[in-house]
């Protein structure tokens, strides 16, 4: 993808413009939460974390800790009782049980890492010294580390206010499901287990609260995706006037859903700043991050797909269990993963019949939240894996079975079995383009039955996926998620110097909003992108909004920016029309000027001067001063993006190590604002998916102790694990959203899990291996090979035995011949 440097000729939307954000970041002048200059007297908070998964707090002794030099204060849950309300995500949904989370545990701890006390000291080093000296007396209770334990009839109730440990359940059945399923020619089924993941943004969380007593104002800088929601939550839970609160998201070093919750730390740090009348700062270190930042994707999905013998997909049956940890996250709640899984399972196919049961279950593990794609990657994994298996069992190629079932143009608009509506899409086109780009037919033609080539097993895998993007107020109401507004706003303003500024209610963690939205403003106003500044993340400026998550940036913030810019452009035309004495509809904006026909024009800067009454010429009658507009945007339709991913892998049969050999994706996110940024999102999403398929897993031992609390144990993919990628673009403009934009942030992950899993399954076809659990670490691959029907039973085989069994092949003989030659 070549960068496009043209600044103001023609349309800005669609340009592959390098980003306005880059310069300070490249120079090391970024301003991430820990980079912000601390005001004099800033105190540092460290949390004393529970060392038990489930226990009663008997006593907390801070006497030794408080005496340490440099320690200013220590608070426990008891001291704060009643002063900070608990976080409660009361989602309005049948089958939902809300629970409270105290900012500091009071009587009971429910996961290792839950904060029981906070130490405030002059610097972080001293605060950690003191935290070590806090003595907590626990009475251990039974840990519940997985869903099976938590749903046992005799399992302890984790939360006093609930019945049992199932915090949400829902079920659904289409009217003809039973009869269709019962009479289907062919059913494939499996139980899919995905491992709990840590979001692991490169920058962990953190916040800095600065209180000003004069006006009883508090400013909280926090590494967040949802500054307005955080502000409102602080107001509600601390009982503070929201007009005296300001929340600012600084530069944020990645988020991916891990910073999409209101956290106890944010409430506490705000409270402490006011209480102590001093700035208070807390930076999450990586160990804390792996133990306390919301995690995701610990699921078990029992899925069955029913087919006619010609491969036509008839329906799906799913039983979904999500381990959501000790507390639901706020504001998205306990149902977001369980509900999302059910909605995503039908995928990109015509599928009339569907039945599901879904549950969100609380356990004594770290709270789960939303992690890029939420449940969609695993739901897609289940569907796509079973599609491949059905294909093999019915004698079809995996591409064929998809061609048979994928939604085509004549199906659209399509309402799926659960009522999700796809107005437009290019499901079949993307599939064909990806297959062609990956040379799929050729790869299949050359593929051997034993999958071996050059001593490795090779496979190719397809995934056809979609992504629900840009969900607005209607969807959040439907899901009962009442603390997520669903709209976003933009205030676009042209200053007297003719330059534009746009305050947008979202915020960015690397998605390039400051460039993409500037492209929109520049195009609408006809000015150079260098004369547009986009500011986000500061609740002190601009409109209220929802924040950046769930692939809503381009659709909703982009949409609001577009609509506000359009109105400003209309006003520019009205003023210029009045001055140039032409019709407003005859005027064009470009190159920083307003053009009528012929030579007649005036600069936008002049128009701005008139609008601010800094020109001899007056505004038209009835026209207001200033040159700005604020728009709140709430799309009525949540547009669906789609993609087809094709991965090729090779597996070392001796060690089980998987290599991604190539990766092709054809995607459609509607109208593209900046192809560089879109591709970046896709690359990044794919690698996060790849990483979770091949090596990431958070583990707890049987006592609920987390054993992956460092990056030496929690394995992220590095540059040598990942391939270069080919990204093909389709642009099916969204008819129902301003600008025609669709979202793209999560699609990469959603497609990568199934594509890679299917490629691995294909490479392991000689072993009839069923891929149904993640991650596919080398030892898992080896286990799949060993436990296949092809192996002699009753004896533990070795990789050497494996290799020898696999190929009495030329490669080995050649190697031996060579070495023999060498020595003689």
């Amino acid at each position: 993808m070549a960068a496009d440097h043209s600044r103001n000729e023609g349309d800005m939307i669609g340009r592959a413009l390098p980003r306005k954000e880059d310069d300070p970041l490249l120079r090391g002048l970024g301003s991430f939460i820990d980079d912000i200059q601390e005001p004099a007297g800033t105190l540092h908070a460290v949390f004393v974390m529970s060392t038990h998964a489930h226990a009663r707090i008997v006593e907390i002794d801070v006497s030794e800790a408080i005496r340490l030099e440099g320690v200013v204060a220590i608070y426990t849950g008891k001291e704060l009782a009643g002063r900070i309300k608990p976080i409660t995500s009361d989602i309005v949904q049948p089958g939902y049980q809300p629970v409270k989370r105290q900012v500091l545990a009071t009587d009971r701890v429910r996961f290792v890492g839950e904060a029981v006390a906070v130490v405030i000291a002059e610097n972080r080093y001293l605060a950690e010294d003191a935290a070590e000296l806090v003595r907590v007396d626990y009475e251990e209770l039974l840990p519940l580390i997985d869903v099976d334990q938590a749903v046992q009839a005799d399992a302890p109730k984790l939360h006093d206010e609930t019945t049992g440990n199932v915090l949400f359940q829902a079920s659904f059945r289409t009217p003809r499901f039973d009869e269709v399923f019962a009479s289907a020619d062919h059913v494939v089924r499996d139980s899919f287990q995905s491992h709990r993941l840590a979001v692991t943004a490169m920058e962990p969380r953190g916040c800095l609260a600065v209180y000003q007593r004069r006006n009883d104002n508090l400013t909280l800088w926090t590494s967040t995706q949802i500054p307005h929601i955080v502000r409102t939550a602080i107001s509600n839970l601390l009982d503070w006037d929201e007009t005296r609160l300001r929340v600012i998201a600084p530069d944020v070093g990645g988020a991916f859903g891990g910073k999409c919750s209101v956290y106890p730390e944010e409430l506490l740090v705000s409270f402490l700043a006011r209480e102590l009348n001093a700035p208070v700062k807390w930076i999450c270190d990586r160990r804390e991050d792996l133990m306390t930042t919301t995690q995701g994707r610990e699921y078990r999905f029992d899925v069955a797909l029913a087919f006619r013998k010609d491969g036509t997909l008839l329906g799906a049956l799913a039983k979904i269990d999500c381990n959501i940890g000790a507390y639901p996250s706020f504001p998205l709640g306990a149902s977001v993963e369980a509900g999302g899984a059910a909605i995503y399972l039908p995928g990109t196919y015509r599928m009339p019949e569907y039945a599901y049961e879904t549950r969100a279950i609380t356990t004594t593990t770290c709270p789960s939240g939303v992690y890029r794609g939420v449940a969609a990657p695993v739901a897609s994994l289940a569907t796509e894996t079973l599609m491949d298996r059905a294909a093999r069992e019915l004698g079809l190629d995996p591409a064929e079975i998809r061609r048979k079932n994928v939604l085509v143009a004549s199906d659209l608009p399509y309402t799926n079995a659960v009522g999700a509506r796809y107005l437009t899409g290019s499901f079949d086109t993307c599939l064909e383009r990806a297959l062609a780009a990956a040379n799929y037919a050729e790869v299949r033609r050359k593929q051997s039955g034993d999958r071996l080539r050059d001593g490795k097993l090779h496979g190719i895998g397809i995934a056809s996926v979609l992504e629900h993007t840009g969900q607005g107020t209607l969807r959040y109401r439907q899901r009962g998620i009442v603390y997520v507004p669903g709209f976003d706003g933009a205030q676009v303003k042209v200053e007297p110097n003719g330059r534009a500024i746009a305050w947008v209610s979202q915020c960015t963690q690397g998605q390039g909003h400051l460039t993409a939205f500037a492209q929109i403003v520049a195009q609408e106003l006809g000015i150079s992108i260098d004369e547009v500044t986009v500011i986000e993340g500061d609740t002190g400026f601009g409109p209220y909004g929802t924040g950046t998550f769930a692939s809503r940036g381009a659709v909703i913030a982009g949409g609001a920016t577009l609509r506000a810019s359009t109105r400003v452009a209309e006003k520019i035309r009205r003023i210029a029309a009045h001055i140039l004495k032409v019709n407003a509809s005859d005027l064009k904006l470009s190159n920083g000027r307003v053009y009528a026909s012929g030579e007649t024009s005036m600069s936008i800067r002049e128009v701005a001067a008139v609008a601010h009454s800094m020109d001899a010429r007056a505004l038209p009658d009835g026209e207001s001063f200033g040159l700005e507009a604020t728009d709140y945007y709430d799309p009525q339709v949540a547009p669906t993006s789609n993609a087809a991913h094709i991965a090729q892998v090779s597996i070392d049969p001796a060690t089980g190590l998987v290599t991604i050999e190539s990766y092709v994706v054809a995607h459609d996110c509607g109208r593209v604002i900046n192809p560089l940024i879109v591709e970046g999102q896709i690359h990044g999403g794919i690698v996060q998916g790849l990483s979770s398929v091949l090596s990431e897993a958070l583990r707890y031992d049987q006592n609920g102790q987390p054993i992956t609390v460092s990056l030496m144990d929690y394995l992220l993919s590095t540059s040598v694990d990942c391939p270069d990628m080919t990204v093909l673009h389709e642009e099916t403009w969204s008819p129902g959203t301003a600008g025609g934009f669709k979202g793209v942030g999560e699609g990469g992950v959603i497609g990568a899990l199934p594509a890679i899993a299917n490629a691995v399954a294909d490479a392991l076809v000689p072993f009839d291996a069923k891929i149904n659990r993640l991650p596919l670490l080398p030892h898992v691959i080896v286990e799949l090979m060993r436990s296949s029907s092809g192996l002699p039973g009753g004896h533990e085989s070795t990789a050497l035995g494996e290799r020898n069994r696999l190929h009495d092949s030329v490669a080995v003989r050649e190697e031996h011949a060579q070495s023999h030659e060498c020595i003689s």
Partner: protein
Amino acid sequence: MKPSRFEYFSPATAAEAVEILANFEGTARLLAGGQSLVPILNFRVFAPAALIDLNRCRGLDEIRKDGTLLVLGAMVRQSAAETSETIRACCPLLTATAPFLGPNAVRNRGTVGGSLAHADRVAELPAVAVALGATMVAEGPKGRRDIAADDFFLGDLTNSLAVDEMLREVRFPVSSPVQRFAFVEATNRHHDLALVGVALKLTLRENRCEQAAIVVVGIGPKPTHLSASERSLVGNRLDADAVRNASALSIEGTEFESDPHTPASYRRHVLPALVERALLQAMSQGLSIQR
């Protein structure tokens, strides 16, 4: 993740370092490259009363050939293993293992002696030291003593140095033209920490294997000779059968440990293939010593 308080010393000689070490009676730690030690301190897994920084000690970073020995001061950086001509010429197995020791930033600071003394159960250099029959030279208040590599590694993160001793230098036998070497490992990700690693040294005489050292790390708490495999090669031609035999014997009488992430069965599964690969790699080297 800030470390606990400690006192800091930066002695100019090994003798001084040892004296300070002795004074602290086991509560001090020697700081070499820091790549293994400092993470432990940052996690507060361990809080020494003092750190004795060896980075300024004179003479500890020498690389010299001394007759039939390659002598590496304990503070020779791991990156030197890849770039030093002397090491390449005298001890090609060290050079071949260098890329496995970690990314550049780790090898720039990490030291050969530090890694050996740290004795991590999956570290590569301990396997190499044992395979080459290296000698560790310890220095304590009472002077120096030699410790054979076979006796140096006692268990995970445990070496046989006394509480008041430091590793001063390591002596490797200089390789000869009739020797072949290899290092291979199985990992969870590409070019990652080892799950299982195999260091191999073969000595040939007239087309037969005169001596074989095959040392594995990652299956237990310390580097282990695969004695059955080694014995099977001695006196025989190195052909396909010998390779197959040696590989298969690698699991005979060998104990494999599990950890929370990887089962013992995987280690058992993968070891023979690693031995085979190491043998084939070593055998494919030419008659002259290669890089």
